[in-house]
């Protein structure tokens, strides 16, 4: 498949469904990931709407407590393992990363396909648990509940184990790609910041996910065979499980948010027609966050009976996560200073990201404060915080990236007007859903409650209305994306956004071997200077 015939692109050549099943082309694998991630985003979203529906009023109306527990478990598990972790690295990253390096493919194409099939296998097993007894442990699988529940948590643990390895192999692949397949002239300081973000994410994936893999295997063994290291009756310790679990899960939240920061790093300079403010500081900040991510997991366990010295230590070091995050947010705003701002849909999503991510970050600082967390832990304040950072951060970053690279991936343009409408609706719906949860949480409403006392009614009503709005916003997005794919107007020429990063040197959509010429990097990724502005 060295040179595709003229006029063909990676989607049309080579033909036939079977060529997609065994493809080694990173672009096709990227598309397959994109389709699977969007499908599971829909499934996870439906569970979210069901939960919000039930919580509209106190008292059980539509389902029993057990069903509610299973719904929030599936919402959490599907969204975390099947949607938000692979969303930007595997779906957008697979497509765009090699092209940003001017490479023809990722370092290990076969491992790339293997990790996609691992993802599918894990996803099928995870969904099959619904028909074989369900799971009601929450996505955190805390022992001793996960090892004593009658539901089929062991099968879900196997699914998460397999998906973990898909994530590890993707990380391994991208690390080798960034190290070895950079274009000539593309030194580390000429790399687009999206590549930096994906590289840092890959390091976290490779370092943290194996610990989760083994921990989940340990609970599956403890549940099925009766011997394990977390059962207090056998001398084990449930708090040790929480240490093992959060050693992965806190870095995991940075696996989720760093790629979104990478996308925003690409979009804001391009649409401000201005170089990114403080490139070195931004790259350093990404690595700062990735490193600190590994030494702060204890702030999830302040009330779990952790010794006070360790509580103090985790609270102190968690504060340092806010410094690089602050640098990034200030630099994005500084990038827009004296720029020439174009507000197409990607930039609109980026603004939404900025607005919402700042609130998420600041409430994170509140939760990191030791005394404050004692009251706020395990309440809806925490639920609102991580949705602000995950839905507000990663999801809006993903939507920005999807709109930004849509012409490159499909060679067609979405409808600009409806894109903006969807963004505004989702933004309003999002704030209406999660801001009241902050107040319900600080008033003491615990999380994962099927039924709540009447005092929290108003906040849950607002939240449910907001969630409906988010759902509506994404339905609009679905329509205009499908419309664009089928009847959208074709892109004429290359580089509709006049960006400077190498992936835009390919045609829209690119040929199978990405570029018809050898990419040589002569200028920095954001040198919007002189006529390039």
């Amino acid at each position, binding site marked *: 498949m060295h040179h595709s015939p003229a006029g063909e692109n990676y989607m049309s050549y080579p033909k036939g469904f079977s060529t997609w099943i065994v493809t080694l082309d990173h672009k096709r694998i990227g598309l397959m990931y994109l389709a699977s991630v969007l499908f599971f985003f829909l499934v996870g979203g439906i569970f979210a709407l069901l939960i919000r529906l039930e919580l509209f009023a106190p008292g059980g109306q539509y389902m029993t407590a057990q069903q509610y527990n299973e719904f929030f478990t599936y919402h959490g598990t599907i969204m975390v393992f099947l949607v938000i972790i692979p969303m930007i690295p595997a779906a957008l990253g697979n497509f765009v990363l090699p092209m940003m390096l001017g490479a023809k493919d990722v370092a290990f194409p076969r491992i790339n396909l293997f990790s996609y099939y691992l993802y599918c296998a894990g996803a099928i097993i995870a969904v099959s648990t619904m028909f074989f007894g369900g799971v009601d442990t929450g996505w955190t699988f805390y022992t001793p509940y996960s090892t004593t529940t009658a539901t089929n948590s062991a099968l879900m643990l196997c699914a998460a184990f397999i998906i973990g390895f898909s994530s*590890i192999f993707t990380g*391994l692949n991208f690390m080798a790609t960034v190290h070895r397949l950079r274009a000539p002239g593309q030194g580390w300081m000429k790399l687009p910041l999206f590549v930096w973000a994906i590289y840092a994410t890959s390091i976290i994936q*490779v370092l943290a996910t194996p610990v989760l893999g083994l921990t989940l295997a340990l609970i599956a063994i403890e549940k099925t065979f009766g011997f394990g290291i977390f059962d207090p009756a*056998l001398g084990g310790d449930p708090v040790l499980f929480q240490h093992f679990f959060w050693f992965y899960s806190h870095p995991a939240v940075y696996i989720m948010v760093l790629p979104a920061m990478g996308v925003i790093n690409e979009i804001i300079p391009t649409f401000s027609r201005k170089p990114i403010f403080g490139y070195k500081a931004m790259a350093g900040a990404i690595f700062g966050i990735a490193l600190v991510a590994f030494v702060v997991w204890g702030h999830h366990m302040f009330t779990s009976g952790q010794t006070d010295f360790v509580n103090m230590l985790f609270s102190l070091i968690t504060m340092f996560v806010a410094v690089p995050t602050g640098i990034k947010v200030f630099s994005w705003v500084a990038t827009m200073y004296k720029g020439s701002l174009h507000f197409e849909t990607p930039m609109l999503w980026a603004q939404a990201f900025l607005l919402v991510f700042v609130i998420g970050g600041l409430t994170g600082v509140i939760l990191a404060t030791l005394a404050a967390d004692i009251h706020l832990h395990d309440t809806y304040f925490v639920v609102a915080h991580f949705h602000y950072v995950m839905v507000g951060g990663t999801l809006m970053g993903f939507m920005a990236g999807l709109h930004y690279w849509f012409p490159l991936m499909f060679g067609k343009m979405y409808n600009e007007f409806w894109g903006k409408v969807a963004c505004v609706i989702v933004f309003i719906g999002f704030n209406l859903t999660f801001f009241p949860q902050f107040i319900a949480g600080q008033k003491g409403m615990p999380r994962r409650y099927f039924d709540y006392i009447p005092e929290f009614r108003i906040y849950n009503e607002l939240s449910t209305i907001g969630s409906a709005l988010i759902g509506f916003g994404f339905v609009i997005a679905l329509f205009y994306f499908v419309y664009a794919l089928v009847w959208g107007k074709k892109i004429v020429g290359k580089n509709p956004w006049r960006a400077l990063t190498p992936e835009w040197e390919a045609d829209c959509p690119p040929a199978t071997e990405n570029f018809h010429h050898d990419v040589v990097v002569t200028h920095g990724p954001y040198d919007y200077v002189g006529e390039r502005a």
Partner: protein
Amino acid sequence: MADKVTAFKEHHHAHHFRNDEHQFETAKQGMWVFLLQEVLFFSPLFVGYLIFKFMYFQDFHDASKHLDWVMGAVNTVILIVSSFTVARAISSAQKGNRDGVVENLIFTFICGLGFLIVKYLEYSHKFHDGLLPGHFFSNPELLETAPHANLFFTFYFLMTGLHGIHVVGGLVVFAWLLKRALNNEFGPKYYTPLECAGLYWHFVDLVWIYLFPLLYLVG
């Protein structure tokens, strides 16, 4: 024996690499990242073991006396020798000595099998003595003196079991490499799979080098 010149199979590098050297370096780096991940994959068991060892110092000490350190030492020697033969297999391939590659691979394979057999003997001895993990623990003597001995054997079976699975994985890979070595695929120009399998096998040996003293000697 005279180095007979063997005609090694022609191997050309994948289209997205500049040359063989580039592909070899990338593959090796990918393997090192995989080993990075393996270190972290074993880490929870080591962390858990070390913590409970200091929490229940006496119980773990009594329980570890029931391990047969002779078998452990034999296994250590077996793995070290197999590490040596893998290294020899790679250097034979680099020198183009096809028979050297085949012999060393066979020898490594046999060492791996030997390791598993010794492991099987140890496990059956434990099953016989009732030194089993968790609820299955039924060794009369330890039940009195060391109430937390079952936790020691939980760690013993989990750590050596996980290590054993990695040894089995290694054997499967060596069998596959032996088949390819037999039809002259590995020569001075192309021996990447051997190099990566070697790195993996040395890592498995490394884990055992730490496991052996931790469980058997100072337990």
